[in-house]
């Protein structure tokens, strides 16, 4: 396996290229499913809000530098600052869309979001720099540049792809109540995230931040699966 952050396609890192591809995939799937416009608005808000928040926080910390070197915004440090900026930007944008369409939301919208976001996440994950503990398991080992570490991002991408397959099969073969597909998506995402995190070196007390996020997803999924 490769090291995602060291793969460049032209001037763009793999992470950015796959983000664009994943967004395109999500929009194509939404068109095919004839998802309501408000669901598309939500996806735009998530992507644009996250990007603007991530880059905006760096511009705010050193405005003169980025005014003189705007192209440097393609590469910004991987830091908690950027994560907080992205989370704040995406959160604000999501809130705006939620409030704007406040009287029209339905549980079936959650299903449309799950069906499109799930395969998009599986695709985007191939560009995550999520690298685990030392290993030599074939196919799941990063063997470039003498690293020999677990390709945790690849495991997560495969598991997310399987989860996507499950919810798309469920959509075709069963008559489900609104919100239940979203429930299965959240549950499978929580399970795959904790499974993948088992290969990573970070430790928590008793869980890591990511595992706590998975707990929240699982609880929400369990609730939605109840119909």
């Amino acid at each position, binding site marked *: 396996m490769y*090291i995602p*952050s*060291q793969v*460049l396609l032209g*001037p763009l890192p793999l992470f950015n290229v796959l983000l664009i591809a994943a967004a395109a995939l999500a929009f194509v799937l939404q068109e095919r499913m004839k998802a309501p416009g408000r669901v598309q608005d939500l996806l735009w808000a998530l992507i644009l809000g996250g990007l603007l928040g991530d880059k905006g926080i*760096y511009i705010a*910390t*050193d405005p003169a*530098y*980025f005014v003189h*070197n705007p*192209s*440097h915004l393609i*590469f*910004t*440090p*991987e*830091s908690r600052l950027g994560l907080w900026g992205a989370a704040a930007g995406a959160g604000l944008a999501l809130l705006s869309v939620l409030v704007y369409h406040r009287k029209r939301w339905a549980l079936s919208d959650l299903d449309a979001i799950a069906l499109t976001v799930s395969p998009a996440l599986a695709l985007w994950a191939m560009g995550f*720099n999520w*690298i685990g*503990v030392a290993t030599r398991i074939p196919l799941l080992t990063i063997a470039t*540049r*003498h*690293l020999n*570490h677990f390709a945790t991002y690849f495991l997560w991408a495969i598991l997310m792809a399987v989860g996507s397959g499950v919810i798309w099969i*469920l959509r075709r073969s*069963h008559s*489900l*109540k609104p919100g*239940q597909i979203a*429930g*299965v998506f959240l*549950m*499978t995402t*929580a*399970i795959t995230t*904790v*499974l993948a*995190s*088992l290969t*990573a*070196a970070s*430790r928590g007390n*008793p*869980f890591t931040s990511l*595992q706590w996020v*998975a*707990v929240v997803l*699982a609880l929400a*999924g*369990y609730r939605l*699966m*109840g*119909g």
Partner: protein
Amino acid sequence: MRNVWRNVLGAVFVLVLALAVVIRPSAHQGFTAQVGQSVGNIAVVSASGQSVALARLLDHHAALINFWATWCPACRMELPNLTAAVTPASRLLLVSQGSAGSTSAFLGRYHIPSRLSWYDPDGHVFNAFFVTTLPTSYFVNRNGIIVSKIVGPMTPALLRQNLAAAEQNQED
């Protein structure tokens, strides 16, 4: 959807969560490039192929150890800022896996002296510091202790701020 599937998935989640508590990665022994650890014993290779310990290169100076590559566009973006930020109280070490000849020629285009360039031909330094993203920068104090780490290209403000913190840090 019957409740049985809901309960099955719920049970699977609880099981993997329990595994997360039981199967914990073993504690690393020795150097893992964490803040507070000493880099002194790690050795890099000079352009002439001679292995030199970082402790000798730092010589009781705070330092910025920058892992980079000539093919990496983000590294090229921050390269001019690195030499500009370094003060008389600190040192700059550029560590790469490229060949000495082509790397020196590349640095020449940026008017950066090739004596700042050090090499890791077998990858053991990159592995010891677990460098997976280029550039990655480690700031160490005058005792060779890691004070901070930045993954990705730094803005000049971020660079100056971390270097000043490394210069002022006295941890032993």
